[in-house]
């Protein structure tokens, strides 16, 4: 038993482990963001809201069907990812199209359906239902029209604004329906309890979080950097026209990749539900920190996002021991320093 800077070593190791656990949430979320930005050049501000949707999906699955955590871990990412795919196809990718007919059809049908729906059901359900129905109608319209979509690329900033607006809408809907206090979500029985590690008591659930997060992060990195599918994806980012000429369906790949990034956020949400407060603002509280993590790691780098996520979790954990009042701000201080020294981020490649 020795002391480091006045803190007993046991306590310090405990804090490091806790920091790693928090870092796994940062890593999962920043991985999703890095995949979406690195591969698709979309700054996805909806990421926090999608993380919240994953947690809410787990809660709703439990409330309406009684199915527990493990089912939610499978279904919630698929459901939220699917909604993400709809969002990308109908709103985000339409930003860069010259022909805005589909967008007009979407907004018109959503507005009409909402006004109609209000006659029978309460506002939040009517709004959510109208949007999903609007998505479907827009899809059908596009399929019927089958015209060639001429591209007219716009500034990345519009994608940022659009996804930010969508995040506010999703959060507002959730808050309207469920209030801001938070909903209870019980921990799965198989993961209750914990192990005494000598220097601290480690809850089984937190150990699961680290293991699951590491597995997901490393497998994602492997797929993107070391497999053929990943190679197509990276090539499509650099030169979509050429890749398209090889016969690869680039728009579909982009949509599915966005859906995958969103599913990553949703999985993080389900994993957060038993330990953190399931509330409408859980995403917005976290997303600012995650963006800082991605910026520090380098916007396009997958391994950078993972390493930085875990690393910053550890640094934040150490700050909570030595100077807890600053634990909210230390990540931003590091971001400022990194941006001054290496503007592309620690692992980023300058474009």
């Amino acid at each position, binding site marked *: 038993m020795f002391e480091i800077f006045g803190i007993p070593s046991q306590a310090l190791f405990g804090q490091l482990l806790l920091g790693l656990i928090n870092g796994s949430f940062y890593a999962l979320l920043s991985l999703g963001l890095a995949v979406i930005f690195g591969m698709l050049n979309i700054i996805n501000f909806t990421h926090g809201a999608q993380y919240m949707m994953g947690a809410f999906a787990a809660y709703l699955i439990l409330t309406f069907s009684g199915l527990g955590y493990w089912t939610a871990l499978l279904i919630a990412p698929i459901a939220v990812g699917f909604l993400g795919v709809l969002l990308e196809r109908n709103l985000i990718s339409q930003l860069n199209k010259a022909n805005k007919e589909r967008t007009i059809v979407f907004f018109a049908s959503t507005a009409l359906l909402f006004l109609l729906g209000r006659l029978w059901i309460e506002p939040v359900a009517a709004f959510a239902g109208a949007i999903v129905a609007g998505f479907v109608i827009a899809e059908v319209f596009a399929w019927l029209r089958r015209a060639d979509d001429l591209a007219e690329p716009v500034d990345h900033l519009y994608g940022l604004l659009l996804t930010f607006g969508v995040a506010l809408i999703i959060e507002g809907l959730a808050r309207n329906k469920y209030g801001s*206090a938070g909903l*209870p979500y019980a921990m799965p029985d198989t993961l209750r309890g*914990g192990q005494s590690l000598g220097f601290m008591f480690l809850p089984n659930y937190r150990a699961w979080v680290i293991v699951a997060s590491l597995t997901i992060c490393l497998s994602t990195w492997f797929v993107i950097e070391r497999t053929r599918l990943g190679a197509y994806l990276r090539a499509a980012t650099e030169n979509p026209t050429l890749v398209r000429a090889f016969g690869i369906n680039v728009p579909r790949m982009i949509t599915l990749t966005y859906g995958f990034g969103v599913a990553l956020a949703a999985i993080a949400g389900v994993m957060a539900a038993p*330990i953190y407060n399931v509330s409408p603002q859980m995403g917005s509280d976290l997303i600012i920190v995650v963006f800082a993590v991605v910026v520090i790691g380098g916007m396009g780098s997958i391994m950078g996002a993972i390493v930085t996520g875990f690393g910053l979790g550890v640094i934040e954990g150490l700050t909570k021991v030595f100077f*807890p009042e600053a634990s909210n701000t230390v990540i931003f201080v590091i971001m400022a320093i990194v941006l001054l020294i290496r503007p592309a981020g620690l692992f980023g490649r300058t474009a």
Partner: protein
Amino acid sequence: MKRTLAALAVTTALMCGTAFAQQITIKIGVLTDMNSLYADDTGPGSVAAARMAATDFMKDHPNVKVEVISGDHQNKADLGVNLANQWFDIEKVDMIADVPNSGVALAITQVVAQKNKVFVGSGPASSDLTGAKCNANNVQWTYDTWMLANGTGKAVVKAGGDTWFFLTSDYAFGHALERDTAAVVEQNGGKVLGKVRHPINSNDFSSFLLQAQTSKAKVIGLANAGGDTINAIKQAAEFGIVKGGQKLAGLLVFAGDVAALGLPTAQGLQFTETFYWDMNDQTRAWTKRWHEVRGDKNKWPTMNHAGVYAGTLHYLKARLALAGDADGKTVVAKMKELPTDDPLFGKGTIRVDGRKIHPAYLFEVKKPEESKYPGDFYKTISTIPANEAFRPLKDGGCPLVSG
């Protein structure tokens, strides 16, 4: 024809005169936390309570017109001050109610004193509001950190919890609560082993709880509120804190927090409050009406909500007694002069330092099997009489207290 018209005109003028002779218009602004960690303990419920007070008063006094507006300070002092200034200057608000978050409340008191309006704070906890930072435009209604420390702290120390470790919310309220409770602990023969200050609205308490565990204190004092307390208690259960032999002392717990935690997690928690919806027939009847106005049967009124209702009612009584004079200092002096009487807190008074006096109760959360109906959360352990519940007048350091 001309004569008839003239007679008609004079009669109408006379009628108008009588009807509007004593019309008093009062505007009240409920400044609260609508969306963040204190939203369920205050927020829309406080607005509902203020509206109920307005409706009840207007029913008994038809010549008074009361308008209630609301705003969200988002726990930011600068936003709160901006809203207060806007309300006083443009919206012609006479009284600000609620204001949870002592940091915002302390900032608001400056504005209220400057503009000579009234602040009936049922939300903030810091005992400094009737202590060093008191002023003549201020009333603190529901509770304060001294009362919480004295109620809960003394009870826990007397029951054997003599070593403490504090988990403190890093702003005015947390610091005040920690300071007052530490004083009570030491006065009653206990020792404070350490403390850690966490940022307000923290998600993850694991590392702070680990520090509390390492300190080996018998009691972990939670000097925070709302969402922070809920998270800390939930995660303490996860880390086996209570199983490991340490006790959690929730220094500020509301009925809304107990509802969010659920009885299995919250059972056995002891804390001090000044109102419980199920205490007597009058509180039950009021809660039924509050549910209708609030529009959500799953939420429960907290002592803050009750404080907004009672405080607003007493303010309106004082305004009526002064025939509509809106001068801040005069109205508050009248509020201190008139004894209070409402169905929620019973009979009481407001002291010269702005402190409202009423009894306090030590509650304990029931076990799940003891709860017979929705909302059946508390059992009363003891009652602290009004003259003992709050800090003695001379100890506050309030400049308004002479001598």
